[in-house]
Every structure is written in structure tokens, then in C-alpha cells.
């Protein structure tokens, strides 16, 4: 062949160039600073001291796609964020690679739910998949090494580099198509037409549920205090038959109120009642259409009392609808008396309308938007009623019982969808929110959803005059994992793993309000040892969470060093968590009636080591930051919120205590044995970023005190209750006696039936008050699983703190509020 020698020569040159180029690329990969959810925490941990991914040649996370060539899709790909993910990928220069990290990104994982794309490979080509939920940092290292091997083994970049035609580099795999090149069905291809196991017992049909053939005792009843009773009589006097007290409840006093009067009732309770219910703790709705008897029976358990109740409504209140299609539920909180109250309002129709209470509680704004979004209930008088969690062009209302819960019941989300379904334009959003006049000409800027400083998928839409923020609209819902809908199809035990993922930095502390709520409803007694283990783990996670907050907050304000320090102690805490539970971020360790297993050998030594070492480290951190003049200039007097506003807007946790109010649920509504511990509730005055900083740092000290006491005075006894009706029995018992074996079998397979009723329990998790409102219709899974996340209310108040601030201040405020997206969007 002519020119053979020449061809060979150039081939040899190109071959050598391939080797050199691949070698250079392999050891200088630049990952994009891009995270979606839990997985990103582990990804970021891989960059810190213990794991140090720099050893493998991927040193610094790049904040802009223009500077990055590796996209690690870490976490859940939501349908609302998918167009953004695709755009970031397309904006990266050639060549580029993609690692899909974690089960969610790989396949949707445990989130087979309407809002989640079942695998990022449906919109992007993927080189390497890292399995795990979440994968450990070591797995990230392994993924990176596998990508490096792939580059060396399969890529021939020099022909592309020298424009000679041919050659391969970067990701060249095709995007996968459901049904052709991939199957979304987790059972694999070929199961079309066969329903998923367990789907028959979910709403709306409940066909085949065996919960009814198991006898369960009625739900717990509480005795009302004399103060509650006197308030009830005042209400009856004042509002007559429009207000009907729920005769028996499991958690707090409750009233059914007619829609015509409920606003008056709420205003009375906030401003005049004794005690005053100052705070709207939570506002949500229940779709009653799948109630098995369609009788308004919330608050009752057992068939006998149902009949009685229905009769009662018929006699006393002929005007009210005994079978409303939806129930609006308002949970109120009184600071003076440390008590809660529930108001339930029935509304009916295909798209019912209730009165908005935004003029009583400004915080109702987002809550009502959420109810509108999820249930299709309108609110008359709401200033800006539009979707909040779902994309603006979404169809249907996901929490209605008629709406499909699973993504696999819907058409697959494709590349074309990700191109077409763009997030709402920033200008439209600002104008819809009355944050910008129609004819105003301002610089409109999106900060987030992909931004280093927004700590997750939050989109701040700002209009700017120079550097000053003139309008701020927060666009949330990019992290909506549909966990409330999932709660309606998983059994009471199966739901526990989802809890920790609601606030992925607070781990086991998340499980607590859920298990307490179910325990309150079913009257499950928890042994003292289990309570103390729960406290121990919750406080360990408070420490670990505050350490991450400390590092990232300082980082936001330009201080890199704390990141490297704080993550070292965090690893120490996670080691203890791993020793006890076997997990890191999501231990799923609490169980109904106790915890999953007893403490292992060696736990006390590990905890003691932490207790002895930590105070000194904390002093070190403080000496880095607390008196730092730059830090003080950036935070003192920045982003203030008054106590009045904080109470009105439902701000909770350290953010509320930074306004000077000593309000901590661990003291005010002691749960899980917190009354046995000695600790202080740190507060600060001023409500600015610096106060929030001070409160959290002091909280770390107090948490450590609790941990010390829990370790020193760990009670002996069982780690799980010995009444096995609702709980998963101890393994040793299960192997020994037939009773336990039966309970184990039933409670693990189809799950226990929890008595009909409802309970709301709120706990002080690291970021504030997280409440679970569980409603049971007597079945094996919840009828309604409502999560009140602290972030939702805290973040809603950010525009208040940021009014008139500069962009740099906004970053400081965001860092100081310490929110987390999965708990805002759920």
C-alpha cells in the first residue's frame, strides 16, 4: 500500500500522543461543584482530610461548568431540576465525563415517585455508576479510579485533538431510552402488566388489605388539662355550634370548625384566647376521598365511636358537611402555655376554595401555596396563589388520592422533556410575587439552583439595583422527593428509612418525631434504655450537623480553613454512629418501640474519647472565627429578624433562639427522656447572623453535655419494648418463642395496622422543629403522612432578613439560617 510507512509513522505518533494526553487527563480531572442531595455530602467528604481525593488527581471542585470536565451527578434527579442538570452538562467544554453517584441518580433508587427521574441516564450519557445510598466517600474514590481506567483503556483522543477525523474522547455513550435500552422497572424488563408487590393495598382501592383481620386496640386517648377544658368552654360559648370539640384525641385538643367561621376562630385563638396561640405550627390538608367509610372520623378509633360521632354531627350541626372531600388541618402553638391545638376544617368539591389566613399569619403564604399545589384547594384572598413545589407547568395535584404515586406509573422522563420543561422565567416569577413592578428595569439574577452558596437546590431570584437587593423571590421545589406521598404506600416500618433522608445532615435525629408520632397514636411504650440511646444518637447528629454548618458558613464568608478542621471531628462522630448503627448518614436506626439493636461493645470508649477531645477542638474553632474582624463585619447586624416577626413567620430552632426567646422543645415539651438531662438553652439577642452563629456554637457545647450524661448514665434494660404487637421483636426472642415469631413475621411482611386516628409530634432536630403528623385509617400504611420541616418556615422568612441587603449579605444570611433542601421541599 502506498504511503504505508508514512501512515505507520503518523499512527505511531498519534498513538504516543494518545498515551500522553490520556495520562494528563486522567490525573487532572476537574469535577463540577454540583450536588443534588445526600450523596453530595459524601462526595464533598471525599475531598476532606481523611479521604483526600486530591491524591487521585481530582483536586478542586470547580464552581462553573466552563471550568469543569467531570460531572458527578450526586443525588436524586428531580423532574424540576433535570433541565438544569442537562444545561450544566451541555455548558461544559469538551471532552467531558459523567459519573452517576448513588441509587437515585442511577435508577431513581428508593424514590419511585412522581417527581423523580428514574435514572439520570435517561437525559445524559453516563460513564460510571457508583452504587449505594449514599455511597461512602471511598466509593467516590473508586468511581474516580474506574473513570481513569476507562479513559486510558478506551479513549483515543489525539485524532480529535489534531482535527484529523475519527478518534474517541469523553463520554460517547448514547442516552438510554426506557423500554428500548433500559427498563425503569426495578424488577428488570419483562414485568409489564404485573403490578408491583403491595400496590393493591394502597389507596384508593385497598383491595386485599389484611389489616382489618388483625385486632388492634383503639388509639391512645389523652386527658385534657384544665386550661384546655376552660378554653374549650370559652370557644363553645363564643362560636356555638360552628366549633365542635373532637371528643377523644391522642396528642392534643382538637376542634372541627365550619369553613364559614374558621378564620374568626383562628384570629380569636391568636389574639384573644387564654392562652394565646401565637404561632401557626403547620398548615396542611388531607384528601378524604379514600377513607374507607367516608365518614368524618379523624380523631376517633373503632367502629363504635364512629357511629356515635356521625350521629352527633348530624344532630348538633346540620349545616356542616359530615363527609367533606378535604380536611384542612391547622396546628397552632402557644408559647405562653407550651401547648398545641389542632383545628380541622372540611371543604368539598372538585376544586374547593377556602379563605386564606395570610392576613392573620404571614407564614401561611407558602403553606397555602403548598396545599394549592398538592391538593388543588384554592385560597380566597391569598396574594399570590401559584404552584410552589411542583414545576409551574405541572399537571394535577400529587397528594390527591386519585393521583399516581409512582414515577413508573407515568410516562418516562426523556431528553426531550429536559429540553422543553424549563424552570419559570425569573422576571415572571418576580412580577408574580409583586417583587418587581411591570415596567421596572432592573438587573434580574438567578442565584441557584446550581450555586456553591445556596447549600442545595434553592433558587434565589433577585432584582438588583447595583449590589443592593430590591426584590427577592425564593423558588423552591427543586428537591421535592414526594416523601409524603411515599408515606401513604410504605408500611409503618418501611417508612423509617425515608425519615433520615428528609434532613440528610441530621440523620437519626429525623427518625425521632416520626417514631414518636406513631408511638403516641398506638400507645407504644419505649423502655428507658432505648430512649437514652435515641437521645445519644440525636445529639451526636446535632453535633455533626452543626460542624458541617460551622464549616460551610465560614466558607461562605471566605474562610476556607474551618472546612478542613470541622470535617475531621465530624468523621470521628460518624465513626461512633457507624460503630453503633452500621450506617453513616442514614442509619435508619430507630424502630417503633425502641431501636434496632442494643449498643455494641466499645461504644462507651468511643463516646468518651469524643467527649474528652471535643471541647478543646471547639475552642480552637472558635478562636479561628468568633473574634475574627472580617467575620464580625460580615455578620454583625446583618440579616436581622425581630422576635415578633420570627414568631409570626414560624421561625424555629437556633434561628428563633437567636432572637432572644428561650424556646426549645426538649425543655418545653420534653420527649424521649430529655427531662432527665441537665443542659442549658443558649440564646442570643439581636437575631442577626452573628447571633445565630453564637447560638449554634454554644449548642454544640450543650449537646456534648447531653452526650456525656447519656454515656455516663446509660440505663440498663431492653432496647425495644416487650409488647410486640406493633414492633419488630428482638431477634433472640423471635428465634425462641412462637408468639414473637408470629409478630416478627406479620410486622416485617405486611406490617402492623396502626389504630385509626391521628397524632402530631414535633421534635427539636438540629435545624429547628420538625413535626410529623401521621393520620391512620387503621391500615398497614399511613393515610396521610405530613412532615412539617423547620426549613420551610425558616427559609420563607429569608426575604424579610434580606430586605435592602447586598448580594454579599444574602450569602451570609443563607449560611446563617442553616436550612437544608429536602426538608423544605420534602
Amino acid at each position, binding site marked *: 500500500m502506498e504511503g504505508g510507512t508514512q501512515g505507520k509513522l503518523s499512527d505511531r505518533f498519534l498513538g504516543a500522543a494518545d498515551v500522553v494526553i490520556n495520562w494528563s487527563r486522567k490525573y487532572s480531572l476537574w469535577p463540577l461543584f454540583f450536588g443534588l442531595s445526600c450523596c453530595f455530602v459524601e462526595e464533598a467528604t471525599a475531598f476532606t482530610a481523611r479521604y483526600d481525593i486530591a491524591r487521585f488527581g481530582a483536586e478542586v471542585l470547580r464552581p462553573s461548568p466552563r471550568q469543569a470536565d467531570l460531572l458527578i451527578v450526586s443525588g436524586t434527579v428531580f423532574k424540576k431540576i433535570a433541565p438544569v442538570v442537562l444545561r450544566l452538562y451541555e455548558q461544559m467544554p469538551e471532552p467531558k465525563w459523567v459519573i452517576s453517584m448513588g441509587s437515585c441518580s442511577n435508577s431513581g433508587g428508593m424514590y419511585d415517585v412522581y417527581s423523580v427521574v428514574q435514572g439520570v441516564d435517561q437525559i445524559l450519557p453516563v460513564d460510571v455508576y457508583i452504587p449505594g445510598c449514599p455511597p461512602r466517600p471511598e466509593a467516590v474514590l473508586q468511581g474516580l479510579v474506574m473513570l481513569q481506567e476507562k479513559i486510558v483503556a478506551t479513549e483515543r483522543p489525539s485524532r480529535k485533538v489534531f482535527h484529523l477525523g475519527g478518534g474517541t474522547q469523553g463520554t460517547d455513550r448514547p442516552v438510554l431510552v426506557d423500554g428500548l435500552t433500559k427498563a425503569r422497572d426495578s424488577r428488570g424488563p419483562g414485568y409489564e402488566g404485573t403490578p408491583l408487590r403491595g400496590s393493591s393495598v394502597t389507596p384508593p382501592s385497598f383491595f386485599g388489605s389484611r389489616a382489618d383481620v388483625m385486632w388492634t386496640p383503639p388509639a391512645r386517648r389523652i386527658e385534657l388539662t384544665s386550661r384546655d377544658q376552660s378554653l374549650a368552654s370559652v370557644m363553645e360559648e363564643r362560636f356555638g355550634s360552628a366549633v365542635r370539640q373532637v371528643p377523644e384525641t391522642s396528642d392534643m385538643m382538637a376542634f372541627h370548625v365550619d369553613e364559614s367561621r374558621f378564620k374568626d376562630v383562628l384570629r380569636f385563638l391568636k389574639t384573644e384566647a387564654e392562652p394565646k396561640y401565637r404561632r401557626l405550627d403547620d398548615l396542611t390538608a388531607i384528601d378524604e376521598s379514600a377513607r374507607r367509610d367516608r365518614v368524618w372520623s379523624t380523631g376517633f378509633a373503632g367502629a363504635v365511636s364512629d357511629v356515635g360521632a356521625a350521629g352527633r354531627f348530624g344532630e348538633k350541626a346540620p349545616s356542616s358537611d359530615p363527609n367533606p372531600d378535604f380536611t384542612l388541618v391547622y396546628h397552632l402553638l402557644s408559647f405562653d402555655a407550651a401547648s398545641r391545638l389542632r383545628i380541622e376544617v372540611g371543604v368539598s368539591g372538585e376544586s374547593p376554595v377556602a379563605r386564606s389566613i395570610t392576613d392573620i399569619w404571614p407564614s401561611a403564604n407558602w403553606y397555602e401555596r403548598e396545599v394549592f399545589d398538592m391538593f388543588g384547594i384554592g385560597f380566597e384572598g391569598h396574594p399570590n396563589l401559584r404552584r410552589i413545589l411542583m414545576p409551574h407547568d405541572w399537571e394535577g395535584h400529587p397528594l390527591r388520592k386519585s393521583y399516581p404515586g409512582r414515577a413508573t406509573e407515568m410516562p418516562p422522563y426523556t431528553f426531550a422533556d429536559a429540553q422543553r420543561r424549563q424552570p419559570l*422565567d425569573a422576571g415572571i416569577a418576580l412580577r408574580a410575587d409583586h417583587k418587581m413592578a411591570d415596567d421596572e428595569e432592573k438587573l434580574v439574577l438567578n442565584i441557584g439552583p446550581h450555586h456553591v452558596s445556596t447549600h442545595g437546590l434553592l433558587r434565589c431570584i433577585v432584582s438588583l439595583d447595583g449590589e443592593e437587593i430590591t426584590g427577592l423571590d425564593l423558588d423552591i421545589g427543586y428537591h421535592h422527593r414526594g416523601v409524603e406521598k411515599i408515606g401513604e404506600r410504605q408500611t409503618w416500618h418501611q417508612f423509617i428509612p425515608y425519615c433520615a433522608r428528609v434532613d440528610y445532615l441530621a440523620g437519626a435525629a429525623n427518625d425521632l418525631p416520626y417514631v414518636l408520632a406513631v408511638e403516641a397514636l398506638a400507645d407504644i411504650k419505649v423502655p428507658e434504655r432505648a430512649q437514652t440511646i435515641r437521645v445519644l444518637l440525636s445529639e451526636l447528629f446535632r453535633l455533626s450537623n452543626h460542624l458541617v454548618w460551622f464549616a460551610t458558613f465560614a466558607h461562605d464568608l471566605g474562610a476556607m480553613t474551618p472546612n478542613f478542621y470541622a470535617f475531621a471531628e465530624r468523621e470521628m462522630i460518624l465513626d461512633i454512629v457507624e460503630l453503633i448503627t452500621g450506617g453513616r448518614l442514614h442509619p435508619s436506626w430507630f424502630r417503633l418501640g425502641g431501636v434496632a439493636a442494643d449498643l455494641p461493645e466499645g461504644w462507651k470508649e468511643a463516646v468518651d474519647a469524643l467527649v474528652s477531645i471535643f471541647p478543646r477542638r471547639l475552642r480552637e474553632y472558635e478562636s479561628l472565627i468568633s473574634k475574627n474582624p472580617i467575620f464580625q463585619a460580615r455578620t454583625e447586624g446583618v440579616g436581622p429578624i425581630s422576635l415578633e416577626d420570627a414568631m409570626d413567620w414560624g421561625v424555629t430552632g437556633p434561628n428563633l433562639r437567636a432572637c432572644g426567646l428561650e424556646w426549645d422543645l426538649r425543655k418545653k415539651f420534653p420527649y424521649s427522656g430529655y427531662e432527665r438531662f441537665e443542659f442549658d438553652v443558649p440564646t442570643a439577642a439581636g437575631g442577626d447572623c452573628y447571633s445565630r452563629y453564637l447560638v449554634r456554637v454554644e449548642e454544640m457545647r450543650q449537646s456534648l453535655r447531653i452526650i456525656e450524661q447519656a454515656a455516663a448514665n446509660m440505663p440498663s434494660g431492653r432496647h425495644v419494648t416487650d409488647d410486640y404487637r406493633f414492633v419488630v421483636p428482638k431477634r433472640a426472642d423471635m428465634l425462641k418463642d412462637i408468639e414473637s415469631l408470629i409478630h416478627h413475621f406479620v410486622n416485617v411482611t405486611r406490617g402492623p395496622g396502626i389504630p385509626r386516628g391521628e397524632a402530631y409530634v414535633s421534635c427539636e432536630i438540629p435545624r429547628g422543629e420538625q413535626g410529623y403528623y401521621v393520620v391512620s385509617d387503621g391500615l398497614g400504611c399511613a393515610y396521610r403522612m405530613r412532615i412539617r420541616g423547620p426549613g420551610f418556615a425558616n427559609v420563607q422568612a429569608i426575604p424579610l432578613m434580606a430586605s435592602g441587603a447586598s448580594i454579599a449579605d444574602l450569602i451570609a444570611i443563607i449560611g446563617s439560617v442553616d436550612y437544608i433542601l429536602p426538608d423544605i421541599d420534602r
Partner: protein
Amino acid sequence: MQPIADGGVLSPWEPGVFTLIVYSVLVLAFIVSQLFLASWLGEKKPGREKSRPYECGIIPTGTARLRYPVPFYLVAIFFLIFDVEGAYIFTWAVIYEDVGWPGWMQMSFFIVLLLIGLFYIWKHGGLDWRAAHKVN
């Protein structure tokens, strides 16, 4: 040592134009080669999304060519004035001994004048970013 050539233009021993030219050509050639290699080497896949401005993954709204608020210009001008005057002072520092006391007096007068200007701006809030912003 005596210079070999009298003219000195091409002499390697005396500072002259020739070395400067050689140096400049080398620098220029290096820069051009780097720019050329960077722009020519490697694969390019232009596209609509890639050429769109990056704004946190969202399609940007409106224009970035707005009327800038006045304080930005103020800061720029203040910077320019004081920066250029720095150049005068550095030059003076080089020939400090040659110009003697009269030079010192002149420069002191110049610096005092600058300081008066600085205090004037300070007093009127020109350095106070937020307040100046409000006034304008």
C-alpha cells in the same frame, strides 16, 4: 572591559534597542503560539446551550446592559485618580535625591492636596458604598 563595537546598537554588552527587540519578538511569538495552540487544539462542539451565558443553570432573564448605578462610576473614578497619582509619587521616589528639598516640598504639597481630596470625598459619603447609593 571595553565595548567591541563603537556604535553600541548591536552590542551585547550595552543596553540597547536590539535586545529589547529580540525580547519583544520572543514574547510575542510565545504568546501567539500559546493562543493558537489553545484555540486550535482540541475538539469543539458549539451549540445553543454552550454559547448561552451561565447563570446557575437557568436561562438568563433580560439584559445585562443596564444603566449602571452611579456609585460604580464614582468608585472607578476615585480609584483611577488615586492610582495615577501613585504613579507620580513612585517616579518622584526614584529621583528623590536629585530633586532635593524643593522636590520634597512640591511632593508634600501634592500629597496634602490629595489627602484633602480624600477627606472631602470621605465626608460626602463617597466611600460609603450603601449611603452614597441611597443619595444617588
